[in-house]
């Protein structure tokens, strides 16, 4: 199959993720969109590794996964704490830190 198709898919997924981050208010959904963007990038990394015939891209994709796993732990715990204190998971409500 033409490797470019994977890249198209990756771009599509990234766009969906970015749109989700920018448009959705629910913190969990925003978080999921972030994960979507990360995995879209992973996909493009693996594709480029395949196109170029070396493993660098795949190694980097593993790094991204590890970092994403750590980020999920921290991010989810923060969201849970916010939900506990404010009874809401909306990112727009958590806007105290401003001018």
């Amino acid at each position, binding site marked *: 199959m033409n490797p470019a198709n994977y890249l198209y898919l990756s771009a599509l997924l990234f766009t969906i993720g970015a749109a989700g981050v*920018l448009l959705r208010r629910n913190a969990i959904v925003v978080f999921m969109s972030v994960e979507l963007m990360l995995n879209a990038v992973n996909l493009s990394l693996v594709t480029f590794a395949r196109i170029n015939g070396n493993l660098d891209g795949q190694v980097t994709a593993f790094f991204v996964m590890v970092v994403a796993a750590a980020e999920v732990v921290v991010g989810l715990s923060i969201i849970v704490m916010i939900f506990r204190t404010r009874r809401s998971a909306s990112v727009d409500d958590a806007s105290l830190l401003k001018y």
Partner: protein
Amino acid sequence: MTGLTVLAAGTGPLGSAAAQPLEAVGATGVVERGAWVMIALPLLGAVLLLLSGHVANRWAHWFAVLMGVGSFGWAVATFLSLLDKPSDSRARNVQLFSWIHVGGFNVDVGLLLDPLSISFALLITGVGSLIHIYSVGYMADDPERRRYFAYLNLFLAAMLLLVLANSFLTLYVGWEGVGLASYLLIGFWQYKPTAATAAKKAFIVNRVGDLGLTIAIMLMFATFGQVDFAGVFAGAQSSATSQTTLTVLGLLLLLGACGKSAQLPLQSWLLDAMEGPTPVSALIHAATMVTAGVYLIVRSNPIFDASPDAQLAVVVVGAATLLFGAIIGCAKDDIKRALAASTISQIGYMILAAGIGTAGYVFAIMLLLTHGFFKAGLFLGAGSVMHGMNDEVDMRKYGGLARVMPITFATFGLCYLAIIGVPPLSGFFAKDKIIEVAFDEGGTRGWILGGAALVGAGITAFYMTRVVIMTFFGPRRWERDAHPHESPRVMTWPMIVLAIGAVFAGALLTFRDSLEKWLAPVVGTPPAEEHVIEPAVVTGLTLGIVTVGILLAVTQYGRRAIPRTAPAAVSFVTVAARRDLYGDAVNEALFMRPGQYLTRSLVFLDNKGVDGIVNGLAALVGGSSGRIRRLQTGFVRSYALSIFGGAALVIIALLLVRL
């Protein structure tokens, strides 16, 4: 200073009057080498009395008197030691210590003992000691008497340092010390606002004069590379020094002299200085302070002799001031202010004589020495009257005191006769000679100067007669609670001694030209000039004018009743004289108001201009950051949009650059 230094005395423009160069050799003998004791004794007194606290209250005044008298004793011993030597070797240099030693510039602190400085030292310590003794009685009830005597001693020490110094820089230390001591004493009763203001005024006006002396010393250093008398005077006489430099030097020294000696245009402080205790006035007017300016000019005679322009300025100042002071004296009802005005006038005579040059120096000093006696006597007399009259100073509330205060009246009367120049009392010899040499200047200049001096003598007779009549004669115009009485002996004895001096000093100094010969090594011998007017005629004229002055005063104040309040309907001259001939008004209009406007405009500029720029800049930064701050909304999604937009921009930029 190494070896012999040549202290050359004035070579006048006339040449014929040149004195033999006087060599200041190193001092020998305990008395001369220990001349610093003269200064150290009163200085010790001042320091000890100021530091000792209330423990010393009981004996402080006598200790101060002892220091003054001790200093006088040493001065007499030094005088006798110098007198013992031939007249061409009567200058002694007492090297004390090295003060400034930088590169080629050396200032050694040393004393110069010569006829001029010793004459001053005798006057300062002698009259000063009498005033100390008098003050013991006068200040008996003052709780701060110890501090007062400490200041008196400080005054003596500073003045002695001034006249005994052998370099202009050391002289300057004494000069400033005198300014400080006068400030402390004029403002001695500093709880009185008038006294505090008068002290500040004296100090500030003196600073203006001091500025002249300071710049003069700098100029000496720049021109001659040294500031000791011997070096500067040798430089002034060498042909390498330009006439302009000498004239500028002379004018700057004159400015300094005007400040200390209360000459026009810096005369205004002296009348206000009457706020101090009366013996202080006597000290300032007779023995110290105001004589410093005359000393400076006479001491700097080689500079003035070499610059006729500077001399012209000096005589103009002297002649103007002697009339100025005399006119003010005619309208003052305050006995001390009347005497103060007379001091301004008498110092004017001295400055006039000093400005005439070699012919006049001796008579300037002669008037200064005799003036020391009679003016101190007059002030102490005035103090004695005030002491008996509950510190009343208004002469309109005196009258008829001759009977109640016989000793005060007698001494005051003798000093009065001396100041108006009645022969054979001391004032006559000096003043008559000054008028004579003023006429001898020749030409229009001689007529103007001589005329001014002559008229001044008449006015002096008028206002002094007025003072005596208003105080001692006529009906009693006392306040109801006044119980005048003669002062205690501790006060009358100094007055008696001063009165004796006022009677005989002039004759003694003139006898066989003793003062002239004594001072000749320093200031030169007056040339035997051809007289424009015969001396006998001048004397006759002077005595005639003095008689007219006395008669006028007698008719105006002796024959008519003196109102207890000053009459308001008087001529404009009287009004002007009552207001010190608008001296203060002129200062205010010329210096104080413009200065005030200048400072106000500077403050305005500072507030609005400088501060405006700084504050505006701060407001700009603050305001704009306040607006930029609004971008920080707290909405995570808008931040995310910013990041997204930013990332997009970066990518677009990268793509554009790549392409």
